[in-house]
């Protein structure tokens, strides 16, 4: 019986290792992007230090839609998030005639912030779209999320002593230390890891598990969406122009009906007689995402639909979705999300390193594993380097530059690519300390050159960057020293 159990455990360890190896680097990008996205609005504020005006929701909405009416009148829709206590700008996605863009609009003037940037939205999109075109990024993210959930379950089964490992760390012992670290990072925040991978899969369910919808609605997606969001009216444009009615009275009416502040607003077919304005309850007021909405006829301001979610199954979905987005979370909870996310990111990274360390201590590495070893240095150090390059580009690129926001993203991708090349070209014992030092210098430069201290939010981002610089610098310095020889070398013959 015990032999069977050991066999099963070994099979699970094998499955854990191989599935992790296949999707590990993708998961690393997703976990890092997701962790940074916890502070998406705060990062956005740090990246727009000139834009510090504040305004109430009605003023900001009127300013934003006034500017959009002049500059993006033919957009299919305007998708807005109103300012709140975390973000002073109106976040807007709209089509100025050249395809949809994302910009932060000044709450007083309504115009895009002079320092044109995606801000935290870059990390948010990276987290589940991986800079790949629709739908491939989301499909790859779904696959990786499934592997993460599988990895957590197989990791638990493969594990002999969950409770004991909770308290075990044996530093500076090669494979043993990496294993202890990997286990501790996985086990300490295990409930979070399971929650975040499960709810993450759910956020992409329309693309990775559409079969229940097909089973119950066939091809009739319109009926499904109508039942799913009864507060949102979907209708085609009439093709006849009509100015948009004032939005401030609609906002007041929506907040009266919802009983809570409005967070997100969509304006579809602006400037058309069939324009629809939909106002969603603020996601920060309850755990659930999209808990209620009111739709207005855009041309007259008349209420078309009004809905607060109270169906238990759909509420469950909203809460699971909201738990993943963490928009409900007050400051302390957000830091907990950040911490747990960082632990998951490090668990993935240490798992990737462990794959190599484990094999290196037994026998000389095969060609495949030498490639893994070099890709590890390039990806695990290179992706954070890309993230920091994004922040540095934000401070270094000139303000009026055309396509500035896109240039910041290019800076991130090219830096990550350069790091990947360095990792491939140099021996790991040289590339790791070099890349870690570059990462530390990048964090320090971003904090010192671009340090913004106008308010506690900007100061926190700057201080976090300084802390990261110290941490990575310490790691880099340690790695410059020669690695001590492993105490015991086992060969394949001894194992067999």
């Amino acid at each position, binding site marked *: 019986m015990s032999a069977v159990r050991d066999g099963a455990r070994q099979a*699970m360890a094998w*499955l854990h290792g191989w599935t992790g190896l296949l999707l590990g680097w993708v998961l690393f990008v997703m976990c890092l992007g997701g962790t940074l996205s916890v502070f998406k609005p705060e990062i956005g504020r740090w990246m727009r230090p000139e834009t510090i005006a504040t305004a109430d929701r009605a003023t900001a909405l009127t300013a934003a839609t006034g500017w959009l009416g002049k500059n993006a009148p033919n957009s299919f829709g305007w998708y807005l998030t109103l300012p709140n206590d975390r973000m002073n700008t109106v976040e807007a996605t709209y089509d100025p005639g050249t395809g949809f863009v994302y910009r932060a609009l000044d709450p007083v003037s309504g115009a895009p912030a002079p320092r044109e940037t995606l801000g935290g939205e870059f990390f948010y999109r990276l987290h589940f779209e991986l800079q790949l075109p629709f739908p491939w990024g989301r499909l790859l993210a779904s696959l990786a999320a499934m592997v993460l959930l599988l990895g957590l379950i197989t990791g638990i089964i493969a594990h002999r002593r969950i409770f004991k490992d909770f308290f075990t760390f044996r530093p500076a012992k090669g494979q043993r230390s990496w294993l202890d670290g990997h286990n501790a990072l996985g086990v300490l925040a295990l409930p979070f890891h399971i929650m975040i991978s499960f709810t993450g899969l*759910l956020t992409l369910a329309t693309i990775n*598990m559409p079969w*229940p919808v*097909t089973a119950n609605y066939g091809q009739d997606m319109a009926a499904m969406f109508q039942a*799913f969001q009864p507060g949102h009216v979907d209708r085609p444009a009439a093709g006849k122009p009509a100015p948009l009615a004032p939005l401030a009275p609609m906002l007041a009416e929506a907040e009266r009906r919802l009983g809570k502040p409005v967070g997100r607003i969509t304006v579809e077919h602006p400037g058309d007689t069939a324009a629809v304005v939909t106002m969603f309850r603020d996601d920060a007021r309850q755990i659930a995402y999209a808990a209620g909405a009111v739709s207005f006829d855009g041309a007259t301001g008349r209420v078309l639909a009004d809905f607060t979610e109270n169906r238990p*199954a759909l509420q*469950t979905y909203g809460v699971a979705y909201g738990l993943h987005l963490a928009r409900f979370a007050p400051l302390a909870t957000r830091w907990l999300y950040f911490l747990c996310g960082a632990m998951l990111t490090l668990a993935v990274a240490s798992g990737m390193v462990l794959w190599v360390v484990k094999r290196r201590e037994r026998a000389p590495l095969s060609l495949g594993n030498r490639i893994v070893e070099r890709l590890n240095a390039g990806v695990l150090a290179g992706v954070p380097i890309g993230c920091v390059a994004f922040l540095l580009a934000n401070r270094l690129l000139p303000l009026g530059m055309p396509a500035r926001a896109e240039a910041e993203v290019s800076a991130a991708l090219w830096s990550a690519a350069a790091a990947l090349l360095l990792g491939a070209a140099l021996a790991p014992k040289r590339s790791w300390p070099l890349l870690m030092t570059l990462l530390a210098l990048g964090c320090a430069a971003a904090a010192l050159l671009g340090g913004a201290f106008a308010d506690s939010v900007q100061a926190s981002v700057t201080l976090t960057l300084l802390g990261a610089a110290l941490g990575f610098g310490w790691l880099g310095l340690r790695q410059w020293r020669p690695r001590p020889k492993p105490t015991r070398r086992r060969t394949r013959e001894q194992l067999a």
Partner: protein
Amino acid sequence: MGAHFRRGWGYRANIATRAVAGSLGAYLVAACFAAAAARTLPLPRLDAIVPATMLAFLVAPVATIWAFLAPGPLRALGGILAAAALLAGIAWAAGMPAA
């Protein structure tokens, strides 16, 4: 599945079969389960989608794990396909696809 397995073609075929059963096969089982659950759960047709989807996300990893624990690779593949066929049959009998 460590060093005690012989690393010959038999081993590779074993792993390849289980990998197909545990990836595509496991997804197929989860998808058929999701469709069958959506059709049969005693809930309004929109509401039923939510538990069907959530449970499917748990069925998938369980099916993958089973594909690697089953006594032999052919039994793993056969078991996965049989489960998918059974669930697809339930979904079909319950009226999928919706008109």
